[in-house]
């Protein structure tokens, strides 16, 4: 055990004195925090819907904003358009009537107006735009306006009171939700984000751990090391140091982001709550299962690293494992929509997938306490098992240089040597 701590300390020092590792951590913390502090210093009300707290807009600001409003044109060949309705339905837009269809087209083409609507009939219009953006929903809103014009015209012809009909048709309903267990709707996005985070931890730091194990074979230090201490101490020390390094980096970055959001939540109008306002119990479940799964895969990556002697061969060695990680990732995300289904129940007990599926069930579905305990015990036993197997492969791979050793061959050799 003492040797394990020596290895762990030495390997951790490698991470924490590595300028690239620490530099990247600092840069990502600063970038993440800066992005979330942005609404305090820059007016993002157009995006967040919230004015900067403490700043009252003065007239000049309002004037300049007025000047920046986009200009939309309409040409009404059918005689149905009500300009005040357009103003209400497009509150951030200045409307102007074009003299003709050609004038409308020409102004849009010359980019003097941002968009143009040529109304050719009571239920027909043409939409003109120079470059249509990904989030251009102008036609959807204009459709509503056209329907309203039609209803107004029709009601007028029939002598109906459109206000009364609308009030009857859209009678307001009051609902008070009494959620007795989980609110999947609001927890869905936390889970989604956390599954992605564990996936990134596994893929990114898993590779780093594999490289760290292989490098001792490639620099030929392994013979000195395995004759100085046990392979168990070496592999456990290296893998756990890599895991701590990964958790530290990801934890500091996430912590900075969560804290910055907490401080600036009001400025964001709570619009990122679905991602960043994570309840405590979800974080606890994530800590046990997410980090447990990460450790499980970290040992597997360490074992795969022990099967090759050149760092450039690592991608070959870990490719099978990467396929498993990817399949589990996609299955987990797909099954979030069916959180109490049989597939996710099975996946939540398998060590390869419980890291994401069990904590998702805890956050969003119905899960009994015994299921959580059993799943975690299976995961913990699997972590120990992969650690011991990894150490055996590491020991067996000592001095086996050359082509990567296939996992099947390695396991066969291990059985023989036992």
């Amino acid at each position: 055990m003492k040797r394990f701590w020596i290895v762990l300390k030495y390997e951790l020092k490698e991470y924490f004195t590595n300028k690239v590792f620490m530099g990247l951590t600092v840069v990502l913390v600063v970038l993440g925090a800066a992005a979330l502090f942005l609404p305090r210093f820059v007016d993002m009300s157009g995006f967040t819907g919230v004015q900067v707290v403490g700043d009252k807009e003065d007239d000049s600001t309002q004037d300049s904003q007025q000047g920046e409003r986009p200009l939309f044109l309409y040409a009404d060949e059918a005689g149905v358009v009500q300009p005040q309705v357009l103003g209400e339905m497009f509150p951030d837009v200045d409307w102007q009537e074009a003299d003709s269809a050609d004038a409308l087209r020409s102004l849009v083409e010359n980019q003097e107006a941002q968009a143009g609507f040529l109304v050719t009939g009571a239920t027909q219009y043409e939409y003109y735009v120079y470059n249509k953006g990904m989030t251009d929903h102008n036609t959807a809103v204009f459709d509503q306006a056209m329907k309203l014009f039609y209803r107004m015209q029709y009601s007028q012809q029939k002598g109906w009171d459109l206000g009364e009909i609308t009030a009857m048709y859209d009678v307001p309903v009051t609902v008070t939700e009494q959620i007795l267990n989980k609110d999947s709707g609001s927890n869905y996005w936390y889970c989604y984000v956390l599954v992605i985070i564990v996936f990134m931890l596994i893929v990114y730091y898993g590779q780093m751990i594999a490289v760290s194990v292989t490098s001792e074979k490639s620099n030929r230090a392994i013979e000195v090391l395995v004759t100085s201490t046990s392979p168990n101490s070496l592999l456990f020390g290296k893998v756990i140091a890599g895991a701590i390094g990964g958790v530290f980096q990801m934890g500091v970055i996430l912590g900075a982001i969560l804290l910055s959001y907490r401080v600036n939540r009001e400025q964001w109008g709570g619009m990122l709550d679905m991602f960043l306002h994570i309840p405590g119990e979800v974080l606890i479940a994530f800590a046990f299962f997410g980090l447990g799964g990460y450790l499980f895969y970290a040992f597997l990556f360490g074992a795969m690293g022990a099967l090759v002697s050149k760092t450039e061969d690592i991608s070959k060695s870990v490719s099978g494992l990467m396929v498993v990680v990817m399949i589990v990732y996609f299955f987990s995300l797909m099954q979030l929509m069916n959180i109490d289904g049989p597939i996710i129940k099975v996946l939540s007990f398998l060590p390869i997938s419980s890291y994401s599926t069990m904590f998702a069930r805890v956050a969003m579905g119905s899960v009994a306490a015994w299921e959580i305990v059993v799943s975690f015990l299976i995961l913990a036993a699997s972590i120990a098992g992969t650690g011991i197997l990894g150490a055996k492969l590491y020991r067996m791979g000592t001095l086996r240089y050359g082509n990567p050793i296939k996992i099947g061959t390695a396991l066969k050799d291990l059985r023989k040597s036992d």
Partner: protein
Amino acid sequence: MRLEVKGIHKSFGDKEVLHGIDFHVESGKALGLLGRNGAGKTTTIRILMDVFHANSGEILLDGKKFVPSRHRIGYLPEERGLYPKRTVIDQMIYLACLRGLNPKEAKESAKRWLARLEVSEYETRKLETLSKGNQQKVQLAATLVSNPEIIILDEPFSGLDPVNSQILKDVVNELIAEDRIVIFSSHQMSYVEEFCDEIAIINQGEVVLAGRLRDIKKEYGKNRLMLAAENLSVEELAQKVEREWPDLVSVSGRKRDILILELKEGADRRKVMAALAASSVEVERFGCYEPSLNDIFVMKVGEEEE
């Protein structure tokens, strides 16, 4: 302490590479493990260090099963390597701690060995920035950093220039004087001859010759004489010997300007000296011939190959 290797057999797959290796070495002595490339020296050392497991045979220390992890061993493997991107002192302290020293002792010992091997100035440098020779010295310092009681050096002189070789020679002599066990594998016979009291020559996975070097040399030099003349070339001297004293000696070899002679049955050194004194040969050198380790190695391994 007495370290004994007894009847070690080792196979890789279906091929047996060691066919029963036996030798022993005691404290304050050095054993030279000799053999051609692929003879089985490194495999034997790796079995000794528990890197490989033997199929059969045993290794004993003072009569008890030898478990490397229970002893401080300084092992310089044939495959040299440390961490290229870490500082010299850091990795030396690390290795010393792994071998049982506390951090304070480890630091002191690391500094002492770096100073002894004259590489102190590089202690805060990354290993990869050092020359090959200095890296080799750091590797040696790392081997000795835990103050081992047993030292196993696999080709320690490879990569060292004559000045650095001299430093290492002095260090090895100090270790022997301090009553450590030293096992030494090398192709450079002159070094083995200089340090080792005992040798074991391994050829094709077998010990073909083992024992005290002095006795072996005596045995191989028995009934052999060396002769050089000032007035005759080696060839002329050989012809004269064969022509004039066929009952006393025969020519068994030549070594540069010296003729190696073997005494015939019933002859002795005095008779040969008398014959020489009565002849026209102007003796430049005459005496008992003691073969070098290199001669013995070539002779023994050559015989085995034939």
